[in-house]
């Protein structure tokens, strides 16, 4: 039997999950039916997809239960859902509001049920819904799995409805709903010697901070290089924390790059993408895993550049921030 959404569908002999769902007119997108295009992606619920159904998927998708429905031929009862299907909302309360600099607010939310975020890999994102019904996605900057307490770094944007509420109206104790997690930007311990290059601009530091801490906590041996880019030193944050972390771990190094303004002792003036490419040039490029996070234009541009410089596409993980076009829920 195949469980999907609220229904249960009998599987014909040797039938794939995709064919079974299509036979029952269930809405699963698909295309090549050959385990290549990944259009028919599903997520396993309380079961393990076979290797054939996960072949070729990125490490982060494999470790979060994703599989290709066309290649999954179950030999026992299974249950799947469409990916990123945020069926459940987790309720939480604001337990921390701290302005990190002129433009960035650290928001800490405690889930009422401390086990509710146990599936959230450090670096994934959650959708936050405030009491006005405004819903936005934010990357988690810490490891919230054990205690259900999630940290977010939220930038004030000119037209930002959620950030406007956060900076002007939000208070400790306010209720927030959280949905997810989603996203493929997190640490996977499949190659602990490989170099990791993490480049974030602005609050793109948030998931990268989580990933760096997670990698170090899991005993990553290879070099971990973090570049944080910002428009000026006033938009940087967490510099002391990152310096401390670099002092404690031989294999972690941190550099800050600002576009404008006098750089100080440990912050260069320049372009974050250029700095990142210069660091990459000194690394074994085919073994390096790259994480990119920040505004979409920056991420897409640097992603192409690192790929062209020889980083394998399977080793590039992106979390591109997209601003909502209009001031609406």
């Amino acid at each position, binding site marked *: 039997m195949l469980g999907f959404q609220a229904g249960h569908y009998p599987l014909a002999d040797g039938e794939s999950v995709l064919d079974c769902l299509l036979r029952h007119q269930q809405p699963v997108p698909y295309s090549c039916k050959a385990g290549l295009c990944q259009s028919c992606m599903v997520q396993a619920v309380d079961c393990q997809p076979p290797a054939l159904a996960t072949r070729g998927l990125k490490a982060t998708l494999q470790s979060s239960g994703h599989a290709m429905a066309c290649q999954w031929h179950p030999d026992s009862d299974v249950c799947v859902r469409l990916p990123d299907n945020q069926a459940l909302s987790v309720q939480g309360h604001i337990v921390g509001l701290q302005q990190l600099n002129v433009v960035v607010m650290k928001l800490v939310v405690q889930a009422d049920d401390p086990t509710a975020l146990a599936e959230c890999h450090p670096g994934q994102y959650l959708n936050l819904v405030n009491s006005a019904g405004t819903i936005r996605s934010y990357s988690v900057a810490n490891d919230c799995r054990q205690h259900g307490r999630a940290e977010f770094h939220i930038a004030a944007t000119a037209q930002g409805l959620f950030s406007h509420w956060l900076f002007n109206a939000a208070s400790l104790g306010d209720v927030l709903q959280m949905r997810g997690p989603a996203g493929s930007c997190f640490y996977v311990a499949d190659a602990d010697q490989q170099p990791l290059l993490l480049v974030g601009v602005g609050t793109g530091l948030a998931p990268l901070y989580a990933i760096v801490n997670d990698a170090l906590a899991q005993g990553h041996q290879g070099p971990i290089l973090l570049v944080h880019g910002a428009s000026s030193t006033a938009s940087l944050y967490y510099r002391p924390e990152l310096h401390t972390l670099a002092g404690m771990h031989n294999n972690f190094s941190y550099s800050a790059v600002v576009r404008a303004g006098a750089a100080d002792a440990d912050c260069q003036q320049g372009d974050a993408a250029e700095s990142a490419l210069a660091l990459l040039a000194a690394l074994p490029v085919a073994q390096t895993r790259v994480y990119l996070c920040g505004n*979409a234009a920056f991420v897409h541009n640097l992603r192409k550049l690192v*790929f062209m410089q020889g980083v394998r596409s399977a080793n590039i993980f992106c979390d591109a921030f997209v601003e909502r076009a209009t001031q609406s829920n």
Partner: protein
Amino acid sequence: MASVFEAIGGAAAVDAAVDIFYRKVLGDPLISKFFDSVDMDRQTAKQKAFLTMAFGGPNHYTGHDMRNAHKHMKLTDVHFNAVAGHLQSTLAELNVPQQHIDTIMGIAASTHDDVLNV
């Protein structure tokens, strides 16, 4: 008799080829715009599907699918030949034996009319 797909290493050969091929097309100003995509993972998956088909591997593409996929791109022989050339040089870079390269280029050539919608 093993198919050319199996002979050159099957899915592993596709994995080895896709980044090399994708870099070549992205670096070619004549055709890069067709491959430059916001969703690079999805593009990579499409390239894998194309290479699998070209290597004689399992796929379910029909001529109709190829026609539809390329219908609105206003492609000409110049574009087709550019992509074919990159496919050939990718295979050469991977030291695929010439007889297999010939077979694969033959499969790729057979898509000409569908891809160009002629």
